[in-house]
């Protein structure tokens, strides 16, 4: 951990505020304390976390929850839909779903991964990656990308659209569908629908491969920058399949120390609270989860694409597996602890999602008629899924009358809270320390945050992207400089 969480003598320092962080989903704020020589003394990423939701669903009938929790987020509603459904499967006693139900859910999930990863890479991240972190802010956006690289922008849009189509066919709607219910799903996929979706899948796979190549080549061409930018070591956490494979829908929890050492493996997530606790810090509304065994200081971790691709033993689809091997081998593993490695891992996952979608669409189980199973009722259940942004935990208790008694949600962005803070501190040290502030320099901070694809709307339960405002405030609180820009 960097020693920039709390400055020793904050009273004499100038404060820089970057608020809200743009091109991330939701509302975040970075504060930086500088002394008279622009030396950085304190850096904090604040995300306004509002835990209204857990209260809101108390008393609601449990079968409403998978639909209702989607309102948490307009970006990855499917992840909440599925995590809640998985928790409720246990409450209705569905220990094992029917093959049709499980495969429909997996398909829905891969559609979500594809659309979310495409949106992030092409719309939110590519302007920085293609034009440079301090390129002219007027062109450093998706419109700029469309002007210079129209094919890249077009494919980005169509990849996302295809993912949304998968969601529409499995959940009934592109956003806020109802496909998954406690114990299974409410529809299968007709053969005609499968034929329709299969029509484009080879193109989608090819474009996903191209996207991997874009980010891989950036790493190769700008190795020094990409390796070092905001780099730090950390523990990693995520689900893996029983055989160690990447599995975004289901598995046991694996935590490693980032050097390959195992902290725990194949842990049953029903008991997640034995492995992970959440720390509260006075300066942040968002909690800081940590691995119990390692304690608050050393127990924080990264989740999401980088953690997953780095931790799994293999990826069970051919093209993505080859890319995983290349990713891990790059410069002796240098991409594994680089925040920008998230982009690379994310595109490998997108390729895996595209391949996985094809595999599922060819499977006749998708058109089966057995949709729901029920068994002995239980009063609590935990559902965990690897959402686009990382491990997502839903935990519910119900009463005998079928009402929700309590809920606990740990969303992906909260899991990455400490890691994002570390990345921001590292970048502040690398780029801001001792220099005059410019918009381009501040954007470096945002580039680091954006690499994690934080879904601040999940964490804050608020929606919308807002314009960026950065303020330089001196020790007695007067604004001495202000940077403003519009949202994308």
């Amino acid at each position, binding site marked *: 951990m960097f020693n920039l969480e709390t400055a020793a003598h904050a009273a004499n320092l100038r404060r820089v505020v970057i608020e809200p962080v743009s091109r991330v989903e939701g509302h975040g704020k970075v504060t930086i304390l500088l002394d008279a020589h622009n030396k950085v003394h304190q850096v904090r990423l604040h995300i306004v976390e509002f835990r209204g939701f857990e209260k809101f669903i108390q008393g609601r009938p449990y079968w409403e929850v998978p639909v209702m929790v989607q*309102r948490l987020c307009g970006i990855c509603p499917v992840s909440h839909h599925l995590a809640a459904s998985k928790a409720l499967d246990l409450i209705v006693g569905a220990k094992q779903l029917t093959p049709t139900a499980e495969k429909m859910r997996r398909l829905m999930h891969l559609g979500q991964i594809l659309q979310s990863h495409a949106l992030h890479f092409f719309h939110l991240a590519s302007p920085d990656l293609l034009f440079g972190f301090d390129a002219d802010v007027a062109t450093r956006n998706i419109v700029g990308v469309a002007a210079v690289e129209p094919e890249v922008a077009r494919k980005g849009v169509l990849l996302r659209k295809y993912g949304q189509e998968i969601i529409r066919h499995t959940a009934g709607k592109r956003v806020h569908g109802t496909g998954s219910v406690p114990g299974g799903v409410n529809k299968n996929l007709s053969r005609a629908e499968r034929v329709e979706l299969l029509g484009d899948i080879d193109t989608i796979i090819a474009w996903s491969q191209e996207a991997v190549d874009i980010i891989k080549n950036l790493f190769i061409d700008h190795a020094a920058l990409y390796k070092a930018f905001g780099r730090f070591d950390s523990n990693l956490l995520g689900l893996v399949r029983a055989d160690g494979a990447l599995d975004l829908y289901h598995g046991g929890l694996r935590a490693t120390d980032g050097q390959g050492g195992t902290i725990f493996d194949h842990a049953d997530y029903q008991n997640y609270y034995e492995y992970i606790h959440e720390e509260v810090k006075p300066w942040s509304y968002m909690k800081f989860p940590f691995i119990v065994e390692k304690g608050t200081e050393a127990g924080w971790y990264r989740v999401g694409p980088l953690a997953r691709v780095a931790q799994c033993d293999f990826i069970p689809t051919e093209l993505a597996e080859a890319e995983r091997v290349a990713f891990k081998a790059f410069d002796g593993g240098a991409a594994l602890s680089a925040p920008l490695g998230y982009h690379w891992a994310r595109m490998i996952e997108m390729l895996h999602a595209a391949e996985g979608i094809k595999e599922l669409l060819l499977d006749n189980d998708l058109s089966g008629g057995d949709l729901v199973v029920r068994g002995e009722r239980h009063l609590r259940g935990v559902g965990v899924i690897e959402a686009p942004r990382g491990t997502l935990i839903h935990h519910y208790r119900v009463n005998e009358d079928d009402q929700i008694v309590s809920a606990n949600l740990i969303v992906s962005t909260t899991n990455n809270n400490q890691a994002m803070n570390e990345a921001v501190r590292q970048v502040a040290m690398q780029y801001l320390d001792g220099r005059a502030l410019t918009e381009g320099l501040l954007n470096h901070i945002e580039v680091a945050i954006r690499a994690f694809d934080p879904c601040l709307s999940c964490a804050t339960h608020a929606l919308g992207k807002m314009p960026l405002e950065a303020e330089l405030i001196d020790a007695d609180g007067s604004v001495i400089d202000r940077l403003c820009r519009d949202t994308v």
Partner: protein
Amino acid sequence: MVILTMDKTFILDGKTIPFEEGETIMEAASAAGVYIPHLCHHPEFKPHGSCKLCTVSIGGRLGASCTNKAAAGMVVESETEALNADRRALTQMLFVEGNHICPSCEKSGNCQLQAVAYHLDMLTPHFTHFYPARDIDASHPDVLLERNRCILCELCVRASRDVDGKNVFGIGGRGIKSRLIVNSASGRLADTNLSVTDRAVEVCPTGAILRKRHGFTVPIGRRLYDHHDIAEVPVAGMKEPRSS
């Protein structure tokens, strides 16, 4: 247009509508496949005349078509801009008086209140939400009572009393304080003899009375009003398909 003059006909929006002695305007219109927006009316139950959505102009005088009897030669207007504007405002009031959160409601797509709102092109609630504090009763093993969605149409009251012979429901309080009450000493549904197969359980036009554990099992696309306006969906008691 040639207007047929028969003994037992009246004119509804320029169409000649036959009726049988004793029928209401609503009943005669439904039997002829003509839709008049309504919520508290149900062909199997005694008219209630409370929601006023079915209000029509009868020879220039306004009246509820579900309670007014058809008479030979009367001239009735229903599909006028003014009447539909009133209906829209009434529907908007129903929305703001309760807590109708369609996106997470399991009745969405099968709900008459929602379907009527679509039919009337209601795009916003317009009025300020009351956000009333209403409770839900989950005590019954198989039936959920979600008062947030009750529009006080009394269909369940009528069904329980007149068909099920149980008298489980009633309306208590007055004016804006009116609420659906349950006839048991504890006031809880679990302490009544309501059964999940009762007519009262399926008659609710909104998502206020629900069979438990069945929510969201019908996929989007296969719900009653997914592809059809409420005016095109036949209801029980209709004798001819709707022309709409």
